[in-house]
């Protein structure tokens, strides 16, 4: 495919502008919880905003692919400005690797362009189906955080347009306060129309991969110490097993192969999860079996292999709509960063609480954040241990559990990740992100999100329109 838009559709298309949306919501977040009705208006051109706001009664929120999990990309009864049609390349400098593109371009589309030219993303999240603007707005991180920091560290500059029409070029030196507010700013400071991204060179699609089994957090920390100079590291963790197998997992590491290889674009994904799985499909027994199979899949304690970058970075992208596996109730993710001082004891305590809850599913990820400071006021990463796990939504059970786990995170001095959150309380948020009040001054008065309304508890926020 010459175009090679190995690309799932953005979660929705424009709702009728003339009528109030009825039936199921037009736009869902990846966790499909919570679900809110909203009007969806596509942005196709850099000049569409803020003109598109004319005549809108409600607040608005720029959104991309809807791959954040909770309500950070939702706006109940408001207008979602979907940027995915704004996906043009603007400039590329093969000497420096700096790509300039409109903010609705996805990382998948960037890879389709960059890989055949010998370049790769500086930071890769767990899915390539996120937009450039979304990656900045959530200051996403990847398996190379120790060496590279988060996504915003590789963004030389971008344009920010406010609802009053003001346009600002933002970088570390130009409008640095707006730059810091917008990186990790959850789309609330204005619309990022275009951005620059510094790509890194590669000579092959392949990743030199190693997978090492471990039991318990001490073995994990030893492995981390031993392989601290390997570029990409991440661990899969069994969060169901207790006793001897408590905190068993696989430590995965990888580096871009230095052996030159073919730099062809990726094929399109073929598998689509066809429909919502029934509620009983995920239960303690099926999850436990999955985890046991996954742990022993590699056959021995330590394997080395050469893998294509797709399964290494984006294993779940191979199945489009895999979130349907969690059934119609959806899922929530719990993701924390604990500072080193109390990271070990906090992780053990929280994981014990999770294992005892019996609610854990597969797809638990454990890794470390390094010392490279993030540039955003509201950026999530901080040095220490990061952990992420999906929970199926069980009415009346999951959210209270998440709140308890949030309190434990707070007790151990950590923080939760807004892009993955559906349950943070206002008190938790304000402790996790002490700069939130300063950040609030940079929020565009026309823009808000259901997440922001929830965690700032600003019942009157919409009245300042």
């Amino acid at each position, binding site marked *: 495919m*010459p175009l090679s838009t190995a690309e799932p559709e953005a979660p929705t298309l424009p709702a009728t502008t003339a009528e109030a949306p009825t039936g199921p919501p037009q736009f869902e977040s990846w966790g499909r919880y919570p679900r809110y009705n909203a009007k969806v208006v596509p942005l196709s051109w850099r*000049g569409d905003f803020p003109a598109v706001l004319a005549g809108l009664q409600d607040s608005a929120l720029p959104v991309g692919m809807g791959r954040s999990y909770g309500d950070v990309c939702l706006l109940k009864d408001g207008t979602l400005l979907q940027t995915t*049609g704004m996906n043009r390349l603007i400039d590329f400098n093969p000497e420096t690797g700096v790509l300039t593109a409109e903010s609705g371009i996805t990382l998948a589309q960037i890879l389709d*362009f960059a890989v055949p030219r010998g370049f790769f993303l500086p930071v890769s999240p767990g899915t390539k189906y996120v937009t450039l603007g979304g990656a900045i707005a959530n200051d996403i991180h990847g398996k190379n955080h120790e060496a590279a920091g988060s996504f915003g560290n590789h963004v030389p500059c971008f344009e920010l347009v406010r609802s009053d029409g003001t346009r600002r070029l933002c970088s570390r030196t130009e409008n640095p306060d707006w730059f810091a507010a917008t990186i990790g700013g959850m789309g609330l400071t204005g619309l990022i129309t275009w951005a620059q991204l510094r790509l890194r060179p590669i000579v092959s699609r392949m990743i030199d991969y190693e997978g090492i089994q471990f039991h318990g957090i001490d073995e994990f920390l030893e492995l981390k110490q031993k392989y601290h100079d390997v570029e990409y590291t991440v661990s899969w963790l069994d969060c169901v097993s207790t006793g001897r197998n408590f905190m068993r997992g696989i430590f995965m590491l990888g580096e871009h192969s230095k052996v030159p290889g073919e730099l062809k674009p990726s094929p399109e994904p073929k598998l689509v999860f066809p429909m919502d799985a029934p509620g009983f499909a995920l239960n303690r027994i099926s999850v436990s079996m999955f985890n046991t199979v996954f742990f022993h899949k590699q056959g021995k304690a330590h394997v080395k292999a050469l893998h294509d970058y797709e399964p290494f970075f984006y294993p779940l992208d191979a199945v489009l709509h895999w979130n349907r596996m969690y059934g119609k109730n959806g899922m929530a993710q719990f993701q924390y960063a604990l500072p080193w001082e109390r990271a070990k004891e906090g992780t053990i305590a929280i994981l014990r609480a999770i294992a005892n809850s019996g609610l854990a599913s597969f797809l638990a990820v454990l890794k470390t954040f390094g010392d490279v400071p993030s540039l955003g006021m509201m950026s999530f990463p901080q040095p220490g241990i990061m952990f992420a796990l999906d929970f199926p939504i069980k009415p009346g059970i999951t959210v209270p559990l998440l709140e308890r786990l949030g309190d434990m995170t707070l007790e151990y001095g950590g923080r939760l990740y807004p892009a993955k959150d559906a349950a943070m309380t206002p008190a938790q948020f304000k402790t996790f992100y002490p700069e939130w009040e300063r950040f609030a001054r940079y929020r565009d008065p026309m823009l808000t999100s259901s997440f922001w309304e929830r965690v700032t508890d600003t019942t009157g926020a919409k009245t300042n329109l």
Partner: protein
Amino acid sequence: MSTLASQPSNESRALNPTAKITQKILVLGATSGIAEATCRIWAAQGAQLFLVARNADKLAAVAADLKLRGAAYVGTAVADLDDTDKHAELLAHAVNSLTGMDIAYLTHGILGDQAQAEQDFQHAAQILHTNFVAPVSLLTWLANFCVQRHAGVLAVISSVAGDRGRKSNYLYGSSKAGLTAFLAGLRNRIDREGVTVLTIKPGPVKTAMTAGMKGSAKFANVNKVAQTIVNAIDKRADNLYVPFQWQPIMFVIRNIPDRIFKKLNL
């Protein structure tokens, strides 16, 4: 039945796939959603493109993108294609810039407002002018250019809406019906001169033009539509329904007797 199957191609007319790199393509209405998606495929093949559109900012954004995606050449002209007096000059300039032309791709058009057009003849005339009269002017020049050289493809976006007038969009539909009939006649005249006329009838496609329309979530993916169009041009097809399901659907719709059809809400 098979609209994609082109007539047995004599060797001289079949495109040599290895020669794709030299394709010189004139795109009229280059900032439309379908046109841009199609151009991205051609750009990745290293085509030479000349783009015409009305809005300078949008045209510049599209041109820069296509250049980066691999187009060997991207020329542009800002023009209002409703202005038929300027067509000859514009087309001559485009063909000179490309130093030739293998494919002309006409994609511009407006949906119009059916309700307004029912009351306001000026609006109805506007729809007919943009969607029918202006393409006839362009195609007259382009057809004669191609006939002189005994080569070329004229690929034109019409619509399934032109297959039968329906109350929900018969102004748009009749403009496209006129265009379809014109293309059929033009093909009948110049195919024997070595010039292919491809009538493209897309069903509803997700683009800016259809944003906000009822049911638009189910409309066809523009990238898939674009790839199908590129393939049809490569195969020198005469007619293309895209997505293909629209061919049997429109066969049925065309053949419903009027005593029934007139009572339907379509």
